[in-house]
């Protein structure tokens, strides 16, 4: 067998198929997914703003949608995506200062993002129901 004389060890680009699951990797992917979901979700904000600015009828339509179980599910998901992405962003800012990158710290930050986003989402919704006008 003719082996190449010099085997140059070049870094391979990440390939999902050969990656072992880790919480840091999962949270990294979720940051991208939430970013994309938030991107398209801006349409909901636009719909609400346009309806509020146009007529009572339009406003009632969008309110009814948001109040339906499906609308509530979408809004709940959107709240979570926003808060997860926000905490994930803070995690990036911490990394930018060259902190939180050690083994153990990385995993802590990843779990903190996950748990924090769920807790904050529930808190926001509890406040929402408390102040419901």
């Amino acid at each position: 067998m003719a082996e190449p004389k010099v085997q140059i060890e070049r870094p391979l680009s990440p390939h999902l198929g050969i990656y072992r699951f880790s919480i840091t990797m999962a949270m990294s992917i979720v940051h991208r997914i939430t970013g994309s979901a938030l991107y398209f979700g801006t349409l909901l904000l636009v719909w609400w703003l346009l309806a509020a600015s146009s007529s009572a009828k339009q406003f009632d339509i969008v309110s009814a949608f948001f109040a339906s179980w499906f609308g509530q599910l979408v809004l709940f998901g959107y709240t979570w995506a926003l808060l997860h992405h926000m905490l994930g962003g803070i995690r990036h800012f911490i990394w930018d200062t060259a902190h939180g990158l050690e083994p153990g710290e990385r995993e802590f930050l990843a779990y903190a993002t996950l748990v924090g986003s769920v807790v904050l989402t529930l808190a926001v919704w509890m406040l929402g129901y408390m102040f419901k006008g």
Partner: protein
Amino acid sequence: MKTPFARVRGLGTAHSGTEHFWMQRLTGIANLPLIIAFLVVIVSLVGSSQASVIATLSNPFVAMILLAALMSVLIHMRIGMQVIIEDYVHTELRKILLLMANTFFTLAVAIAAVYAILKINFGL
């Protein structure tokens, strides 16, 4: 190849890069307080009538915060989506079309949202 000078200015073979990274951080930092303020406004409006939504959104402070949040978020999400497209789409034509669509989508959202806020504040 790039001259060492161009390299130092952050212009590698991709011709750009650090501005993009920096803009993503800058808008990300700006998003933090603006999104929190946005959430406060939204939570305070849960279940509100159209009249009280309009009353809140035509408060000058709320309107300006909302416009600022929109500007920061829209720039942020456009360059964020640009990276995603550049990461996954490698056919030149398709990439260019998607990058165009990204810009048009962002501008459409911006124009519609700003129009609605201005109308609520000045046009009703």
